[in-house]
């Protein structure tokens, strides 16, 4: 038996990929729990399917590229991609869309570019956008939160729905699906209803949609855990939430009847998930401190612009992908000055 002896300082190494990924998974736990409580077993089934598909596809591509399999699978990056994807998609998504999504994320966006660390785009978000653009109907068919559902799907019914697309007897899609709060808000604002009128529906809770706002709170808690563990820094999440919140506050102050409150924006859709877990992806985000502030702020602003005037109800995936392209340029122009060097460009 050998005892490894290390000299001081005795600090846990935090920069190992698998450790970072494990912490991200731990940080996602409250959000996953909240999603499962409000939206049923489908969330967990989707996660399981996506993880299995992602690991299998990653293994196949690593073998085809003649790369060592175990280190790449063991770093858990494919698992994190799968979980992020699975909690972004509707809980009743047919299994083959999850398969196609993972194929796109792992094979095309990650492995064809050279694997973890070389991918210019966030794989989970690229897959989400790929599916949203290609199959808009299943990708926007959300279930209502549990307290509003006429019929809560059991585990067996959820599994059957995902695997075979068969609905429980006596129910149709209209009975079990519901618009997301962002979608409902948009549709009714387009009909020139005032927010006072819109909010009379039982769909709404304290600030956002019932159930949905608590999912946002859960992701916020998980994000704070990541900040506490220093897995991520505060720059991107704060910049993103602040710019989204500031723009929302501005328009809300001007016209509170046709622009929802900043809290609605912050606790709806994927704002919290995006700010702490997606925009902070160390591979595809900006890496300089100033760059991260710019990167996060433009994501937040883009989310607000697309939510308010764009063609889709939520926009975190689009905003993140757009800024992924811009990240290298932002990094180039925000290189910190090395100590002792002059400010001017050489």
């Amino acid at each position, binding site marked *: 038996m050998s005892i490894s002896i290390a000299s001081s300082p005795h600090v846990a190494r935090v920069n190992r990929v698998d450790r970072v990924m494990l912490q991200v998974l731990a940080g996602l736990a409250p959000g996953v729990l909240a999603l499962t409580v409000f939206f049923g077993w489908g969330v967990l089934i989707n996660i399981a399917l996506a993880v299995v598909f992602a690991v299998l596809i990653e293994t196949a591509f690593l073998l085809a590229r003649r790369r060592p399999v175990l280190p790449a699978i063991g770093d858990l990056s494919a698992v994190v991609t799968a979980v992020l994807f699975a909690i972004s998609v509707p809980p009743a998504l047919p299994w083959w869309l999850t398969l*196609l999504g993972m194929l796109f994320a792992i094979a*095309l966006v990650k492995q*064809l570019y050279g694997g973890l660390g070389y991918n210019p785009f966030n794989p989970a978000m690229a897959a989400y956008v*790929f599916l949203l*653009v*290609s*199959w*808009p109907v299943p990708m926007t068919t959300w279930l209502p939160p549990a307290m509003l559902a006429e019929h809560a799907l059991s585990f067996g019914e959820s599994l059957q729905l995902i695997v075979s697309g068969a609905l429980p007897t006596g129910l149709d899609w209209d009975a079990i699906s519901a618009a997301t709060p962002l979608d409902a808000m948009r549709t009714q604002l387009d009909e020139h209803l005032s927010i006072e009128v819109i909010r009379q529906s039982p769909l709404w809770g304290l600030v956002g949609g019932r159930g949905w706002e608590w999912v946002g709170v859960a992701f916020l808690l998980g994000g704070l855990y990541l900040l506490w563990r220093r897995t991520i820094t505060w720059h991107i999440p704060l910049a993103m939430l602040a710019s989204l919140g500031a723009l929302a506050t501005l328009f809300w102050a001007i016209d509170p009847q046709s622009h929802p409150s900043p809290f609605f924006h912050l606790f709806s859709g994927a704002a919290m998930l995006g700010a702490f877990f997606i925009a902070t992806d160390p591979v595809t985000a900006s890496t300089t401190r100033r760059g991260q502030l710019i990167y996060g702020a433009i994501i937040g602003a883009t989310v607000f612009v697309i939510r308010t005037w764009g063609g889709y109800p939520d926009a975190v995936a689009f905003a993140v992908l757009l800024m992924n392209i811009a990240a290298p340029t932002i990094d180039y122009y925000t290189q910190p000055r090395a100590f002792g060097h002059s400010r001017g460009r050489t």
Partner: protein
Amino acid sequence: MATPSDWKQLFADGLWNNNQALVALLGLCPLLATTTSATNGLGMGLATTAVLVLSNVTISLIRNLVRPEVRLPVFVLVIASFVTAVELAVQAYFYELYLVLGLFIPLIVTNCAIIGRAEAFASKHGVKPALLDGLAMGLGFTLALMVLGGLREFAGQGTLFHQAHLLLGDAARGLSLSLGEDFQGALIAILPPGAFIGLGLLIALKNVIDKRLAARASAQGIKTNREVEQSTAATAL
């Protein structure tokens, strides 16, 4: 001067080695915009081929009359004339295809592949090689457009050569292939991103094939043409 081996070389270059779409990456605007189906790709490719052949021949004919200082405007003028003629012909004979391809037929005039061949080949060679070059390059371009169009159509709609009768007459109805109405295709394949992803995959595929071929050739040892000829002669005997 055009010996059979020259022809072979011209066609090998046009269809594969120097494919205007997959290697030279020229003419990407029509390539990306009109390849939403195999039929559209084929139509666009044939229109481009017609212009390419006609302009190559004409430019080869006048190559000694045009002063080098003004050659580019003259080339553009020649190409534009043929594009106009082809556009009118498509409008007259394939009106529905014309509606689909729309603006992109007049835009053939800006297709860099055409002025590229005029400048790089036709203005330096005789009529016959210029004609063959135009034909080979045009067919290579057509092939790339048709394959990309076919891939996008198949992934997006689950059909192949849908509406081929617009281009090839009623006899081509049998060419159409369909996976049925229920097929839920990937809409993105028909949308502009699908063109970029599809083209990227096609180029990657071609590079992989080239790499494999090169690896096989170097594994077998490099044989000179003479040795190959001798060995074939020996087997023939």
